[in-house]
């Protein structure tokens, strides 16, 4: 799989580091299970007999989702820190960190994904009047 053309030590170091990494991947269990990754890979026409590449794709996806989630978390905390009134409220809100569409759309916009969502669903005349007390 690693096609060594011969050559300088730097490339050999890269190759050895990469092969060590791929070997360690077999010990690491990605959150996205292998069967699921294989299903989506087969659906997209990706053929590879090497299990390490499947793990590589799985951890790449996991890293992407983790980045999006952490960006959304930062957005959520930034929004909460602006609304803090006193210490008691802040502790209560820290326990309830909710992944909302607003934070998610802001986090995804950095990745180039435009997600549009409805601001609110009006099922009563008072909907949308007080956003702070609205719960999903």
């Amino acid at each position, binding site marked *: *799989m*690693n096609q060594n053309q011969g050559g300088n030590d*730097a*490339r050999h170091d*890269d190759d050895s*580091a*990469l092969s060590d*990494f791929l070997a*360690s*991947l077999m010990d*690491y*269990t*990605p*959150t*996205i*299970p292998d*069967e*699921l990754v294989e*299903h*989506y*890979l087969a659906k*997209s*026409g*990706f*053929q*590879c*007999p*090497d299990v390490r*590449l499947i793990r*590589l*794709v799985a*951890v*790449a*996806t*996991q*890293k*992407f*989702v*983790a980045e*999006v*989630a*952490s960006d*959304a*978390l930062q957005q959520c905390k930034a929004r909460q820190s602006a609304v803090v009134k006193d210490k008691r409220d802040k502790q209560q809100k820290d326990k*309830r*960190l*909710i*992944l*909302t*569409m607003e*934070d*998610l759309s802001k986090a*995804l916009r*950095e*990745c*180039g*994904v435009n*997600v549009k*969502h409805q601001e609110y669903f009006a099922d009563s005349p008072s909907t949308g009047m007080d956003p702070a007390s609205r719960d*999903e």
Partner: protein
Amino acid sequence: MESETLETLGPSEFSFAITKVAVAQICQSAGFRTAQSSALETITRITTLYLQTLAKSASSRAASSGRTQSNIYDVVHALEHLSSDQGFAGASNPNGCLLASSPLLDLIKFVYSRCEIPFAKPLPRRSNLSQNLPLPQNPSNSKQSPHIPTWLPGFPDPSTYIEPKTEIPSGLNWNAEVEERKHSGNEKEKKSRLGNMELPKKRERVTFRMGEAAEAKGPRLGFRVGMKNGVCRGGKRVSWQNHNLQNSKFKRPR
């Protein structure tokens, strides 16, 4: 996520539900406690699209290099392609070594820094799933037609596509049959069921005259096969399904 809900889903919904569980686990490890259902579904959809885009990019890269199976270079290229939106170090250098590209190095750092989060529930192995759905086998195909794979559906009832054999006069014994039909006279012909595929059982006598200026006489129909410098220029093949004795359009004008 209850197991009963998973069993009643279709295949695509099943994989989506599993992905939703995995994505929820990742979000929980990032620090979230709860999530809006619409937000969770959105991020799950983005995850499946990301996974498929990685795979499509890598496989198209391999295909354009003349390979059917992707290797690590294809995957790293796909990673770089998807990271080009946000940018990464070394993106402006096209000659850099692929194995030292920064998306790959970031991925290595990510794996080494995080402790693993295994999936919440054990998934059924693919072999178990295939036992529930037996592939339809057609043993008749394997015996009579070994060139046809057994997983294809069997042929329909032979009476639907095999016509009962009728006498079809062969072209080689044309003269002999014309002699036989001299005694049969004008007989009505049967229209074939399948149109052009089968000649009618009994036909009018047909005479061919090679050469020019051959006129049809009476009920007999004549063809004039055009001759040019002694070489026969054949006419078109015609079907006798709807023939008309008086129809003169079969005569080729010379």
